[in-house]
């Protein structure tokens, strides 16, 4: 019965994920010459790693640099959403709140307004003569000129991705068998110890899901960093869009997408390795 669920999904994956992305893979390793003949080539991958100027150090090469920026921004976003989000999920899952479903909706409802509109609202809040600074001036405090800085970009990213971290962790923490915690306490573990040795390892699957749902889209996004960063951020997402739309070079665009998959798979591998190590330490079975 359970296995039965696997096969239709396999078919679904094949048609709607493998097939379209197989096409992208095909584009990435081919090119079309002036006469319209398609031939095999790896030059688009080479183009990505090539240097603008001879002897340029690897990480300051144009497109490599863009990739590094994107991964760094995605990583920082993930770390901050985790630090802010874990306590939120922990508190929400705790005993203090009876009407959890309403709390959950309260948390996600703002995200149902279009994200472009919300990001524009952040622009109105953070700009030099914006709402925040009007308020600070009214209090007699010095103004904060943070729009178009890294802080504004991170703020916007964290704002947008926070629910994707909180919800899976909340799910993992909720309905956790309280007897496990009681047993640990009975065995003499004090509260922080119970948390580190028992609760946190048990919530690890939720953490892994949360990190996946934040890190991966964050590495491909670009609209929020572009708006709040004032164009100081040019990211992998920009690059793919530039190639697909403005240049119209789908082959190079596809190659960048394939490189992104590669980067993400490596990251996932590292993540799952850490996850397993954590789980083992917590004594949780696979």
């Amino acid at each position, binding site marked *: 019965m359970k296995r039965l669920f696997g096969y239709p999904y396999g078919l679904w994956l094949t048609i709607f994920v493998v097939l379209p992305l197989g096409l992208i893979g095909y584009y990435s390793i081919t090119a079309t010459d002036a006469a319209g003949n398609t031939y095999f080539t790896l030059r688009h991958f080479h183009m990505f790693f090539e240097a603008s100027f001879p002897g340029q150090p690897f990480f300051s090469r144009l497109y490599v640099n863009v990739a590094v920026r994107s991964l760094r921004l995605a990583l920082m976003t993930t770390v901050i959403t985790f630090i802010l989000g874990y306590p939120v999920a922990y508190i929400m899952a705790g005993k203090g709140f009876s009407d959890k*479903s309403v709390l959950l909706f309260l948390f996600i409802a703002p995200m149902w307004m279009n994200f472009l509109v919300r990001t*524009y609202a952040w622009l109105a809040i953070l700009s030099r003569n914006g709402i925040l600074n009007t308020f600070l001036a009214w209090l007699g405090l010095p103004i904060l000129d943070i729009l178009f800085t890294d802080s504004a970009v991170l703020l916007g990213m964290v704002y947008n991705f926070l629910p994707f971290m909180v919800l899976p962790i909340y799910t993992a923490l909720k309905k956790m068998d309280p007897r496990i915690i009681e047993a640990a306490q009975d065995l003499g573990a004090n509260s922080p110890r119970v948390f580190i040795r028992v609760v946190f390892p048990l919530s690890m699957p939720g953490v892994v899901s949360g990190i996946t749902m934040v890190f991966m889209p964050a590495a491909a996004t670009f609209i929020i960093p572009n708006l709040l960063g*004032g164009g*100081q951020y040019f990211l992998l997402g920009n690059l793919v869009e530039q190639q697909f739309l403005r240049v119209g070079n789908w082959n190079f665009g596809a190659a960048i997408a394939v490189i992104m998959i590669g980067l993400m798979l490596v990251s996932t591998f590292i993540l799952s390795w850490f996850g397993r190590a954590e789980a083992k330490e917590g004594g949780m079975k696979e």
Partner: protein
Amino acid sequence: MKRVFMLLVVAVGLLFFTACGENEAVLQPDTDDGEAPLASSINVFNWGEFIDPQVLSMFTQETGIAVNYSMYASNEEMYQRIRTGGADFDVLFPSDYMIQRMISQGMLARLNWDNIPNREHIYYRFWGMPFDPYDQYSVPYMWGTFGILYNTAIVDEPVYSWDILWNPRWANEIFMYDASRDTMGAALRRLGFSLNSTNIEEIHAARDSLIEQRPLVRAFAGDQIKDWMIVGDGALATVFSGDAVWAKQDNPDLNFIVPIEGTQIFLDSMVIPITTTRQREAEMFINFMTRPDIAYLNTRYIMYSTTNYTTLQMLPDYMKDCTIYWPPEEIFYRLEAFEDLGDFKEEFERAWTEVLVAN
């Protein structure tokens, strides 16, 4: 939890089902002269916020043809939707260089001018443009220039040249438009080159000048620039003339100029894709949009300059006499329209990427 969810779903669903009834037009095909009956609807694909919404229902009322209206955010997105096939549009609104590309790729239909008598209202300067030199494919709709918007309360020196955007005095007060062709174009004209240069050395010179300018730039941005300029967040910005008209309404201290080195003129025109099966209806729509009273409604709504000379005479003085909305004749000699760069786009975009990554 399950019930909460269901309740929300049902309530919200009901709300919107009841809120919007379909108002499909009742079709009255008028068969004059024994011609084939008119199609019941056409599919129009236009920029967002680029038409007065009431114009669509007026067209349906007059002709009985319903308009299925869709929107796009950029020429390139529109182009890919048409290029990949599967699109069923009858009227599009591409800009200059995109019209040229679509013509060269055989994507546009030749217009039957007999069906578009209102073409006579279009200002003579907008015919015979380089992207459609024999006026076979496109009818001009809106136009404008790309120049410098500045705050006269802050900038106390005369503004006449692109050079002021490179003046360290205005560091952190400058907004640049976040689009490769427009901003590189300004840099090219400043250096005395063509907007449409495909000389790699000229492109690199423009790139280097923009990299040199970067420390002075407060932000690269899009439509938000005018909001910031209105509240005085910056002193100088590159914007389209239509946005300048708009911004000046909210803050009279703002002014807009076309730099002496010259700049871009853009034209958004109406065209018909070759795949259409409703060319006559599409031409009726284009003719309708070119009628002076309809062009009047559209330009009042959009605030971009109309291409319709008859409409211009109908406008209130504050628009007609505004040199931002309709510049004096001598300005036209400084203007250059974009052309399609073909395969050179690759080099061009790479140079632009190098500008944005340089920090």
